């Protein structure tokens, strides 16, 4: 019984174990013919701290903050800054090999390209 609990504990993200704050970042989801585009606010995160996994149809974002130090003694704050975690179910037909992400100004964009077969096809009409 005890063993079972320990094993479960190990599966949780590190920051969850540490009991530091874990935020669910706000996201936008867009789509066009080629891809689904997911955009998330993750201020304070660098590429090194990013972990994006797509397993079966579940996309998981885990973003750790950079290790910048607090510039002095804390006087006041809104909340304790923490890492980010969120997962999504994505539709079938994502080309897993071609998933790409970029990070700019604390905003993460994940491009999830649709497989060839799922893209709308243009049908040429020939005049007879």
């Amino acid at each position, binding site marked *: 019984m005890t063993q079972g609990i320990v094993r479960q504990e190990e599966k949780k993200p590190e920051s*969850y174990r540490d*009991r530091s*704050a*874990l*935020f*669910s*970042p*706000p*996201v*936008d*989801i*867009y*789509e*066009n013919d080629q891809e*689904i*585009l997911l*955009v*998330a*606010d*993750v*201020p*304070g*995160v*660098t590429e090194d701290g990013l972990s994006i996994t797509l397993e079966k149809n579940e996309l998981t974002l885990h973003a750790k903050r*950079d290790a*910048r130090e*607090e*510039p*002095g*003694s*804390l*006087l*006041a*704050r*809104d*909340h*304790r*800054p*923490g890492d980010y975690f*969120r997962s*999504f*179910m*994505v*539709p*079938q*037909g994502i080309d897993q090999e071609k998933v790409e992400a970029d*990070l700019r*100004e*604390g*905003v993460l964009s994940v491009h999830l390209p*649709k497989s060839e077969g*799922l893209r*709308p096809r243009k049908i040429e009409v020939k005049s007879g």
Partner: protein
Amino acid sequence: MPFLTRWNNDFGWGNIDRTFTALDEIRRRMERAFDDVGVERDTDPAGLSTWPPSSLYDAGSELVLRAEVPGVSEKDLDLQVNQDVLTVSGTRPVEVPEGYSAHRRERGAMRFSRSFTLPFRVNAESCGATLKNGVLDVRIAKAPEARPRQITVKAG
């Protein structure tokens, strides 16, 4: 967008809205689970009254305000110090990328302004700000009389 949804229906893409909606319930349950173990989360990510989320630090000779401003570039930021009040304002543009339709929009485009009453007198002439990875640091020198002073103890 309804047109797009219909168009894609045969391929299963029309279900995307429903897929994400179903996930909301899962997310709510997860967040409740987080609450139970005391994990903090951002309940109001776009709450304008507290945007940008900030921390204030005392660094001896200066004060540092650290604010989270994802998606805001330098040119969209405006910082002002007036007596002992620091005001951070600006705009964050969020637009649907051209040619895309939107399924979910949680990141708000916004015009924000937040003022902080500083606990010390400051020297507004001597301040600086840096923006890195969506985090803004504003450093403002304390007025000379507000700086910590070393007191020498003399043996009597």
